[in-house]
């Protein structure tokens, strides 16, 4: 690649997310305006028809989530974006998407909550809602960008995972990342992998929409209109897609939904490790706070303190093994986040006492600063 091929653009995180969606091949977007996610809808309202896709502003977030699942069933790559209050409204149909195994991407640009909260204040308070917001036992995939470049790249990744694993995928931004402007290298077509869902093989007889055909446990997915006339429901169903009350069948569906994500772990779970080999203290961070962590880590190293970083790019499924490995070597783990310890608690249970875990939890809409982290490092060393 020559230098002139590289397209560097100054972009906002939300804009990079929208452009990433276009790179991934989005065909359909439905949303409802809410700060601090609105720019994603505004960019796509303009860009979608240019790309031959469809944009619709629905009457609310419930409808937006419904519309992207409906559109996905016709074969479209779909996305919606929202923030706290809207994320709450999407939960029921998000769960529907999981049970009906419908690929789609849901972006939550987190703001300070609960309730209407602080609409323009950043937070990371929806980490547990992302995990457990919809009712019942279900698996979740959630990615968490820390830079504007990653907003682009991880949006592409989110579409890829949604298509490959036939499931809704969450992209958890925060107000800082969504509104920040940075340089983005827009990849050329073909430079980043773009995955499309597996369809039933041509000529398939007796297609069963919910029957896996290989060890991935992900059933091939036909589109409405392809001629298979299958049934889709949020009721627990057998491999034909029709509802059942049979406890064995209901239980094995829930089990398979978890297993297909579990088996894909290697493709799904991404972390970044910085200087952890000799680290006494490891900072475990994600999203905007990972930026402060990087600053603090550099400053600590300059002072001669052995500090490393484990950055969680995938937050759900939780990178338990990666965290445990770090805990086995380090003395202390610091989990700075903009909530009251939602991920710290998960880290704590993952490390089973192998290292001390300390949290920093800002819930006032102020970024966790490098100084806050440095002070904690001093305290625990």
């Amino acid at each position, binding site marked *: 690649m020559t230098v002139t091929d590289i397209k560097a653009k100054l972009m906002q995180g939300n804009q990079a997310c929208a452009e990433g969606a276009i790179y991934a091949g989005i065909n359909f977007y439905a949303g409802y305006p809410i700060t601090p996610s609105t720019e994603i809808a505004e960019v796509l309202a303009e860009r979608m028809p240019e790309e031959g896709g469809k944009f619709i502003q629905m009457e609310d977030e419930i409808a937006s989530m419904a519309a992207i699942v409906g559109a996905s069933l016709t074969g479209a790559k779909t996305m919606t974006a929202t923030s706290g209050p809207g994320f709450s409204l999407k939960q029921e149909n998000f769960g529907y998407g999981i049970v009906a195994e419908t690929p789609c991407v849901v972006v939550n640009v987190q703001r300070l909550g609960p309730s209407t909260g602080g609409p323009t204040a950043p937070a990371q308070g929806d980490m547990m809602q992302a995990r457990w917001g919809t009712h019942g036992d279900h698996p979740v995939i959630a990615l968490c960008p820390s830079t504007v470049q990653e907003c682009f790249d991880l949006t592409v990744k989110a579409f890829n995972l949604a298509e490959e694993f036939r499931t809704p995928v969450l992209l958890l931004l925060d107000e800082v990342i969504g509104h920040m402007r940075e340089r983005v290298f827009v990849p050329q077509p073909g430079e980043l992998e773009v995955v499309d869902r597996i369809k039933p093989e041509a000529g398939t007889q007796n297609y069963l929409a919910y029957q896996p055909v290989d060890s991935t446990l992900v059933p091939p997915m036909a589109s409405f209109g392809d001629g298979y006339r299958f049934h889709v429901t949020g009721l627990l169903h057998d491999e034909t897609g029709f*509802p059942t009350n049979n406890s064995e069948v209901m239980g094995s569906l829930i089990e398979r939904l978890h297993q297909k994500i579990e088996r894909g772990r290697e493709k799904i779970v991404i972390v970044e490790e910085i200087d952890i080999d000799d680290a006494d203290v490891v900072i475990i961070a994600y999203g905007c706070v990972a930026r402060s962590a990087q600053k603090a880590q550099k400053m600590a190293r300059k002072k001669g303190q052995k500090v490393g970083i484990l950055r969680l790019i995938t937050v759900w499924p939780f990178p338990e093994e990666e965290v445990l490995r770090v805990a086995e070597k380090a003395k202390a783990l610091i989990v700075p986040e903009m909530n009251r310890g939602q991920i710290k608690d998960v880290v704590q249970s993952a490390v089973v006492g192998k290292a001390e875990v300390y949290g920093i939890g800002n819930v006032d809409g102020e970024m966790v600063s490098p100084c806050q982290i440095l002070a904690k490092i001093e305290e625990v060393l």
Partner: protein
Amino acid sequence: MLAHLEKYFRTERLPHIWCPGCANGIIVKSLVEAIDKAGLDQDKTVIVSGIGCSSRAPGYLNFNTLHTTHGRAIAFATGVKLANPELNVIVVTGDGDGTSIGGNHLIHGARRNIDLTVLLFNNSIYGMTGGQYSPMSPQGAKATTSPYGNIERPFDICNLVTASGASYVARGNSYHTSQLTNLIYQGLQNKGFSFIEAISTCPVYFGRKNKLGRPADMLKMQKEFCISKEAAEKMSAEEKAGKVITGVLHYAELPEYTEQYQKIVDKCQRR
């Protein structure tokens, strides 16, 4: 089952879950007759529903079928239709599903005049959850949650959908079935938001709570209280009191949503 209709059913899914005497089956037959008359391609037709007894209908029908969450069928259907306008999209909903929890989606679907045909089974009650009052229960009606009689006034849902901007609005019932078939057929022919209220019965809950007799008596009552729009025009206000008017209540030629959107796509792509 009539031989020419058998291909529209997933006969292996029968018998259905509905109670003996429930009018849902009668309305489904009218729907299927209308689809047959309109000659819709089963492979290119999607039937979407919400949650309720009536919303179980798609499971028995041999099309692309989408049984969604309570009240949200029109929102899912909007996604299906806009993403692939070549598909014929039919929505089956109940009075609770479509006018209570789903009321917002109903008026916005109508306002957009998106090409969906919405068939609302109005049995004046929440059947599936065991007989609670709905926004379509008449004043005074008894239900498990209105043991002293319903104090709320019901919607005139056809008026609401008309006022919201739908291009085709009709009302039929489960007694006058050939009229109902025809009303659904015209809805399928209309390119735009078509809404058909089909008055149904729930003998098990609404009938029993309100002492309306046997299932057949409830159907006969529809014969009495439903009058066609044409007949109503010749009647005095006194004669019309207590009657429910059926037929095509509203029709207007209006731009359809997905066609409008396609124009934008075409314009952007020419640039």
